[in-house]
């Protein structure tokens, strides 16, 4: 090849390398993300990620809505952990406004929280079974998950976006009949989860999951991975224990943090399986200790919202996928200056590269599923130049400059 100075350049081409575009549309991926994988035969040499296919601009939308409207918008950031998002957001507002929700509300939030963890983990376990080609287990797991969704519908009226939280409490109460329903479902659930646990110890499943996608403890700590991904690598972090919120302040000692040292896909799966049992126990504890009293503060929500002063805070919850962080800055006029959401997938997705390099092509879907990625939550704006293929992640400074320009106009 001749370059622009007329000198002859030799370019080394490695014909044994193959670049496989995995995604944005691929049966193994539940949400669009583009993985550019370089392979030699079956071995993975390099991985590159492109996010940004489902960016929705919720953080920008937050700046021109009022606080109550935002409550329903943040719920829609994620379909699986919708309750985690609203809890995190509402906690921040309550901290700024000095509102103390009643005890019963905190317990009910925790109840929905743990139910959500069960349904999210069952979801992931089903996907995992699907990725290794075990369709029967996939169907079985999702069949069980359905019973949890039915519970949600009975309690809150909605299967996915529960709209349970409101400023200063929750919107729906449990009566004795519902409590019995939940207890009965939990009993069945426990049996079924035992069954799934046995299924996952099947030899063909173990062959696919053990010693695959290993993440060392050191790298896990360096990349700040969170949730089951971190706990599968021997890092014991759990917001429910470390910074208790809602009813976890009382229930802190009623559950244990499941930690596995091995760091492979099977460890991460096992962490989730064992957490299911912890969650079931925790819900039973919540139902036992459910205090009586009102489920929210007396005052009207709109009036509460107007009372929230200008201020900023950080709120943390343990979503099913890991630590979820909200930075909320209110403007004192029932709006927001800034909302910053750090979903657990953002740190976890970085860990995919050390996990994937050295694996086989067959391991890609399994490893990607093992961090339980939620791409829509993690997407940030990327601008792509269609002609040159150049990509640029848009940062906050860039947006500010743009905004100033438009203001001038």
């Amino acid at each position, binding site marked *: 090849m001749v370059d622009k100075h007329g000198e002859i350049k030799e370019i080394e081409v490695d014909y044994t390398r193959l670049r*496989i575009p995995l995604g944005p549309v691929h049966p*193994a991926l539940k949400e669009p993300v583009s993985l550019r994988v370089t392979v030699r*035969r*079956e071995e993975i040499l390099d991985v590159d990620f492109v996010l940004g296919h489902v960016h929705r601009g919720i953080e920008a939308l937050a700046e021109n809505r009022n606080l109550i409207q935002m409550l329903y918008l943040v719920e829609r950031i994620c379909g699986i952990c919708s309750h985690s998002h609203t809890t995190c957001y509402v906690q921040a507002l309550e901290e700024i406004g000095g509102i103390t929700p009643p005890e019963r509300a905190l317990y009910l939030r925790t109840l929905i929280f743990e139910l959500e963890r069960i349904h999210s983990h069952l979801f992931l376990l089903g996907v995992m079974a699907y990725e290794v*080609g075990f*369709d029967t287990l996939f169907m079985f797991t999702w069949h069980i998950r359905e019973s949890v969704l039915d519970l949600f519908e009975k309690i809150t009226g909605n299967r996915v976006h529960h709209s349970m939280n409101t400023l200063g409490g929750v919107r729906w109460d449990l009566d004795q009949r519902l409590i019995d329903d939940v207890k009965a479902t939990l009993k069945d659930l426990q049996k079924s989860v035992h069954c799934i646990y046995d299924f996952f110890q*099947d030899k063909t*499943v173990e062959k696919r999951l053990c010693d695959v996608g290993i993440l060392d403890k050191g790298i896990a700590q360096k990349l700040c991975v969170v949730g089951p991904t971190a706990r599968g690598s021997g890092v014991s972090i759990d917001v429910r224990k470390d910074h208790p919120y809602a009813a976890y302040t009382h229930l802190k000692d009623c559950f244990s943090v499941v930690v596995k040292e091995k760091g492979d896909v099977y460890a991460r799966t096992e962490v989730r399986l064992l957490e299911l049992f912890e969650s079931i126990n925790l819900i039973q504890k919540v139902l036992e200790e459910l205090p009586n009293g009102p489920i929210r503060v007396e005052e009207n929500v709109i009036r509460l919202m107007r009372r929230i002063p200008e201020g900023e805070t950080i709120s943390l919850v343990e979503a099913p996928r890991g630590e979820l962080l909200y930075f909320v800055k209110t403007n004192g006029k029932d709006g927001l200056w800034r909302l910053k959401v750090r979903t657990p997938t953002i740190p976890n997705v970085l860990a995919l590269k050390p996990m994937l390099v050295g694996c086989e*092509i*067959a391991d890609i879907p399994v490893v990607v599923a093992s961090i339980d990625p939620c791409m829509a939550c993690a997407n940030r704006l990327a601008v792509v130049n269609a002609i040159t293929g150049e990509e640029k992640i848009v940062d906050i400074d860039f947006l500010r400059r743009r905004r100033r320009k438009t203001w001038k106009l």
Partner: protein
Amino acid sequence: METLIDLLLVFPLVFTVSLLFDGIDRKLHARMQRRMGPPIIQPLYDFVKLFSKERIVPTTASSVIFTVLPPIAAAASILGASMLLASLLLGVSIGGDLIVVLYLLAMSSVLVMVGGSSSGNPYGAVGFSRKMSMLIAYEVPLLLSILSVSLKVNSLSYYDVISAQIMAKSMLALAFPSIAIAATAFLICVPAAAEAVPFDVSEAKTEIVYGPLVEYGGPFLALFKLAKSVSNLTLTLLAATLFFYPLTVFGGDSSFGLIALIACLVFALIFWFLTITVPRTIFARLKVGQAFKFYWLVALPLSTAAALLSVLGL
């Protein structure tokens, strides 16, 4: 004249029976997963529907190979199955037809592989290399197990193997230990040849998006799917007739004709269920290395032992 009509009827019979068996397989698979499952004639609907779809040839594909291979693959596999059915129906013997059937069986899967790699899609290329490894893994034990049958019967004709069973009034696999081992090896090879789940590494939908079939759609896909279900029929029919010829149970000499055909097809369906439907319900997919290892460490020694034993006369 009547023979000719019979022969002409064999082709539509192969077509419908194989798709019907495929439908039964899907239904049973679904019922075992607590699902409703599609109606039994769904594969027929699929076939008709796919034929009404647009033909798309990707720009990266070498278009001649890409478009010519699907009909050839379908024709090859239908021809293979029809030879077996015609032999059963008419009781005719063609010297060396077992070799031809096995050749046609391998041909249809090689054609799928080549067609996939001609599409220019990287998934097709990965599928090609995986299928290549799998062919090497299962083809040898498959051939060896059939070889031990023909060594035993001293003939390479399908008809002769069956008439030997009728003469002996016993299924070959039950009469000789060598053939019993060969039958085991053959049945182990069926899921790999049929690309059922633990060994469907070359298609692996969550990994390489159906591998060789990734760029195929419309009539081409319909033909490849037909080729696949017909070769599944051939495989299970071979298992049912070479090793476990059903009519020997009843004795007597009315051993060819329509009754024989129906009995063999029912047996084939049972073997289809046992070797294709059940594994794909109860196992997870293996990696290509693991599958390869399984065949070379389990199926190959078994079939070699069978061949050696049958040479020794056991």
